[in-house]
Structure formats: C-alpha cells, structure tokens
C-alpha cells in the first residue's frame, strides 16, 4: 500500500516537471510534450490505495478527471498509461484519450472527464456482475464537488433499489476548482447522501490510509458478499492547484498549509516506523517506486507519435460501409465490382 502511494506521489511530481517542459516562459497550456489540461492528485493517495487494494483485476473502477493515483492503485499498466499521457501511439488508448480518459480493459479501469458520469457505468458493471452471478464489484470514484450531480444521485438510487455490488468513493478535498463545498453543497457530508437512498454510508475523516483500508475492506466486502452498495467518503487534501496552471488566487494560504501538513504518506510512514519498519526499508521502497516511475516515463517518451491519419480509426468497432479504418484501396477489380473488398 505504501509503495503504491509513494509511486503515485513520485509519478505526479515527475509529470508536473514533464508537463512544464516547453511551456515556459509565459505558461502556454497548448505547448510542450504533454499539452491540454493536467489534473494532479498529490495528497489524495490514501483514498485510492485504501479501497483499490481490496480489488481484483475483474473488479471495475471508474475514475474521474483526476485519475492517476486511482489507476496506479488499481494496477493499470504504468508504461502504457504514461505513453497515453504523452500522446503516443502505444499508449493505452493509442493517443486518442489522454490523461482524463484512460481505458485499461485488462484491469477493468475507465475514466471520464465529465463530472459524476463514471457513476452510471459503475452501476452497469455491478448489474452485469449480479446478473452473471459472479462476485466481482464495481467502484466509482468522484470528488465532493460531484455529489450534487444528477448522475451520482440517480446512480445511488439504482444501486440501492437493485442491491448492486457498487462502492461510491468520494474524495473530499474541500474544493471543486475554486468553489469551497460550504458555498455550493448542502448538506456537506457526502456519506450522508447514502441515508436518503437507504444504503450504507461512512466517512473517514482523516488522511489516514489505514482507516481507509479498513473502511474499504468493509465496503468492498459488503458488495462482494451480495449485501449491497456503500457510499464511502474520504477526507483528502489537494496539494496542488485544480489543474496545472491554476493560479489558485481563490485559495487561502492556511488551506495550502493544511494540505502540506496533513500528508497521508508521511502519516503512514510514521505508523510503519512505529511498527518497527526502519528508514532504510522505507528508503528502499521509495527507490523502487522512483525507478518504476522513471522507467515508465523514459519508455513512454521513446514511443512514436501516432500518424495524423490514425485520427480516423476507432470511431466504430464495426465500421459501417462508407466509414473505413483504412484509406480505401481502389484496385481495378474492386472498382469494377463497384465496391467492397
């Protein structure tokens, strides 16, 4: 668990550096090797590993626009995910998706950049598991800003009324871009939403990965045993801006300081020391994580960019006639026969 948290943190730090390459001076979001928006999750790792460490590859996770830590905890292929973020041909989505839209069917991981819209597909995955009588579960991640969205609330009802194996994990980092939850959400306790839908709700009010792990065990176990859905809310702290380039002028200094102080990784490290794990061992874990991150980024950057024409591929799995994956080849025979090869 600690190793995944550290990997996620180092990964985000590395991406932050890589993202800034080519963007300065005068920050330009469309410049550099990794253009577009980049939402980093440093400070939110406990919510990812605390739940995902109870999951198997056949369990489904849907993540929102801030997905890397969850992807790492779920076991998404780090190299191909990185290649995707760098827009490479060998990326998870062949360069079509980018950082907010990572799909790894090998471990049943998917993302959406539209707020709360990962919830309904998670309900669908839960429904499939129930219909097929398997014991796999589905987990939908969302931010506290997403809990006012219809897609979330409608999903809670569906999951509850059909008793589906779904866990909704709310990462409460107090902010939805510049909007603090007290100004836009009532009531603010996301886990309390569960009450209205006659399902279990629990809130872990600290950045404590061990407490999340315990709550995650219970929620995932309940779903796996056929005992229905749970809303699990976890207090986390967003250490960075909403997205890279966010001037954060809305955010009071104290809030940033609190985020720096309440660090779940340091907290877990302290716990581990108490259990007799020495600094050397922690350092080894860190080195392993750093190496893994470096390998992934180095590999990704060596990968080829897609050909421009590849933009036309993959619109359909089964392209209708007239829409082809390939440039049409007009061999004489084909042309004479009037068409299809």
């Amino acid at each position, binding site marked *: 668990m600690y190793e995944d948290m550290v990997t996620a943190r180092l990964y985000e730090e590395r991406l932050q550096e890589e993202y800034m390459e080519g963007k300065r001076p005068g920050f330009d979001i469309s410049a550099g090797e990794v253009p*577009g928006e980049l939402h980093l999750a440093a400070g939110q790792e406990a919510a990812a590993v605390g739940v995902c460490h109870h999951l198997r590859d056949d369990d489904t996770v849907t993540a929102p626009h801030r997905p890397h830590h969850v992807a790492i905890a779920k076991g998404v292929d780090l190299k191909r995910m990185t290649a995707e973020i760098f827009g490479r041909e060998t990326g998870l989505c062949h360069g079509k*998706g980018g950082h*907010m839209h990572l799909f790894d069917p090998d471990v049943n991981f998917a993302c959406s950049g539209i707020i709360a819209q990962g919830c309904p597909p998670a309900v669908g995955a839960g429904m499939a598991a129930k219909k097929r009588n398997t014991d796999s579960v589905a987990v939908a991640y969302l931010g506290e800003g997403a809990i006012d*969205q219809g897609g979330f609330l409608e999903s809670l009802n569906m999951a509850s009324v059909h008793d589906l194996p779904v866990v909704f994990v709310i990462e409460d980092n107090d902010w939805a871009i*510049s*909007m603090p939850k007290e100004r*836009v959400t009532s009531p603010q306790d996301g886990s309390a939403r569960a009450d209205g839908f006659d399902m279990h709700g629990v809130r872990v009010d600290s950045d404590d990965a061990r407490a999340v792990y315990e709550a995650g065990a219970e929620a995932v176990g309940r779903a796996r045993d056929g005992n229905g859905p749970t809303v699990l809310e976890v207090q986390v702290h967003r250490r960075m801006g909403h997205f890279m380039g966010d001037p954060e002028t809305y955010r009071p200094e104290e809030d940033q300081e609190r985020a720096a102080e309440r660090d779940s990784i340091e907290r877990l490290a302290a716990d581990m020391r108490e259990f007799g794990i020495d600094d050397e061992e922690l350092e080894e874990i860190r080195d392993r994580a750093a190496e893994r991150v470096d390998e992934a980024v180095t590999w990704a950057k060596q990968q080829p960019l897609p*050909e421009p024409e590849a933009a036309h591929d993959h*619109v359909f799995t089964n392209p209708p006639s007239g829409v082809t994956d390939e440039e049409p080849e007009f061999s004489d025979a084909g042309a004479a026969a009037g068409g299809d090869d």
Partner: protein
Amino acid sequence: MSSQEQQQTGRTATMSDAMVEAIASEMRADEEVFYMGEDVADYGGIFDSTTGLLDEFGRDRVMDVPISETAYLGAAVGAAQAGMRPIAELMFVDFFGVAMDQIYNQMAKNTYMSGASVSVPMVLTTAVGGTYNDAAQHSQTLYGTFAHLPGMKVVVPSTAYDAKGLMHNAIRDDDPVVYMFHKRLMGIGWMPAPDGPKTPVPEEEYTIPFGKADVKREGDDVTVVTLGLHVHRALEAAETLAHEGIDAEVIDLRTLKPLDRETVLESVRKTGSLVVVDEDYQSYGVTGEIISSVAESDLDALEAVERVAVPDVPIPYSRPMEDAVIPGAEDVAEAVRSVGE
C-alpha cells in the same frame, strides 16, 4: 459602426474584456440581470468570462453554483420566465449533455409551447473549441447542434468588437440566446490568442443586430464563409492566397440563428465559388446548411463548392491527430485553391 469607425476608437480590448464590459454595463442598468455558473465568482470564469464582476456586484448577482447543470440552467429558465434576465454559463459546451433537457426542451421550447404567453429572456454562455489537446470531452465546437434545434438564437463572436455588441443584444433579447465563445479567442493568459480578435472597442454601449453577417475581408475570386476561430484562420489563408493572386472574400456569420443567407448569396453571386469552413463536425452541420441555402436560392450562381470541417470523428487527444482533424489555415487555402481551379 463600420470598420472605419472601429479603427478610430483607438482603445483595444481582448474578447473576454469586451464581453465582460457588456455584461457589467447591462448589470448596472438593470437589477434583474444576474450571472450564474461554476467558478464565475472568485475565479472570474475559467476562460475569463466574468473577470472582476464579483468585486462590483457581489455574490447575489455573480453566483457560483453547484456542479449541477440541470439545476442551475433550469433555474435560469425559471427565473427568466419569472421576468428576470439571467445569464448562465456552461463552462464547456461539451457538458451540455448532463442538462440537455433543460436546454432544448425547456429553455428553447417554452415560448412556443405556451403559444408565446411565456418568454425566456436568458443568455446561455459557453466555451467552445479545441486546438490545445484536451481530447474529445473538452474540445467540441457543436455550433450545429445548437443551431439545429429550434427556439434559441445562437451567437458566435470572433472579435472583441463583435463580442461586446452581440452581448449587449443577447442580454436585451426577449428570447433565449446561446452565446458561444471560442476559448482560443478570449485572450486568456494561459492560452495565447491570435492577433485578430483583439480589436478596437468603443467604451460606450452599442449593439450588433442578430442575423447580420460581416464581410471581414473583401475579395472577388472566392467566397469563404466561416465563424469563430476559423474567421482568423480564413483571413490568414486569404493573406497567403493574395500572394498567389487569388482574392478571397471572408464572411463571418456572427450569428447562426438567425442566419444571414443574403450576404452569403450576394457574395457567391459575385465570386461564383464557395468554401465553407467550420470547426464543428461536418455531417449535418453549418457547412451543409450554408451550401444548401445557396443552392436552393440560386443554383446557377454556384460554380464550385468545397467544405472544410472536422471529419466525423471525436476530437483526438494527441497533437498530430488533433492537428489533422481541426482545419488549419493551410487546409482553408488548399480548399480555396481547389475551387479556383
């Protein structure tokens, strides 16, 4: 005001400044005008669409709302029906899906269904466009979707001068107006704009009537019809073509509903050739509409036609592919050359 008069005003502004100036002046003049959206208060709008409004008008009139597009866009409809003049911002047009019922069944149809006993004097502002590698859920242009559905007026400014005049009009209009601004034109610090949209803007109020296209460049050889960002790409292409001895006329539609078919037709009667350029998907869109209206009115005037739009694929993330699908100045020039042949 003619373009000569525009030149004389001296003071230039970015498109976002010009928009905000019109909103502020309407808010000063009429207590019933208010603005709501995500991150519009403290942040000042992710795309600088409300910079400074909170300071002058306070939270009652510049309201951050929950991430609940159905609720707040629908609330704008309700407030408008109650006689207020709300402006509601949908941060990216791509998010319309979560609230489309409020937009196209309520906002757009209530006037008609009520036999005009109800009116809906609201403005829906929204950011459109790609060119910064933000992938398929954050880069769409969707002019065609909104203009296709009856009951709402659709406005697409391409310069600061137009942005201000059209915004004054939009707020004063007794019907719902969708005001679609291209991110790349706003003059945001982190997304450099081309030079074109920053134009002289008079300090005083003025309106630009809906349904009046603007001839942004006069020419005798080919008519290029476009809107939004692509006005600037077409003008750039026209400059290149001028060196090759091709004189292109560039028409900026400025509003899609109502649509100024007359100006387009007049120009085609003069040049004989038509190129329509759009950043939206090609099928069932603006290009088809413009070409068919010219063909219907005066088929004989039309010697050659080309359209340049996004092929029917979602906007891909990776740069080579995004560049391939979003028309550039060179694609426009190529199309103009081909109709000139």
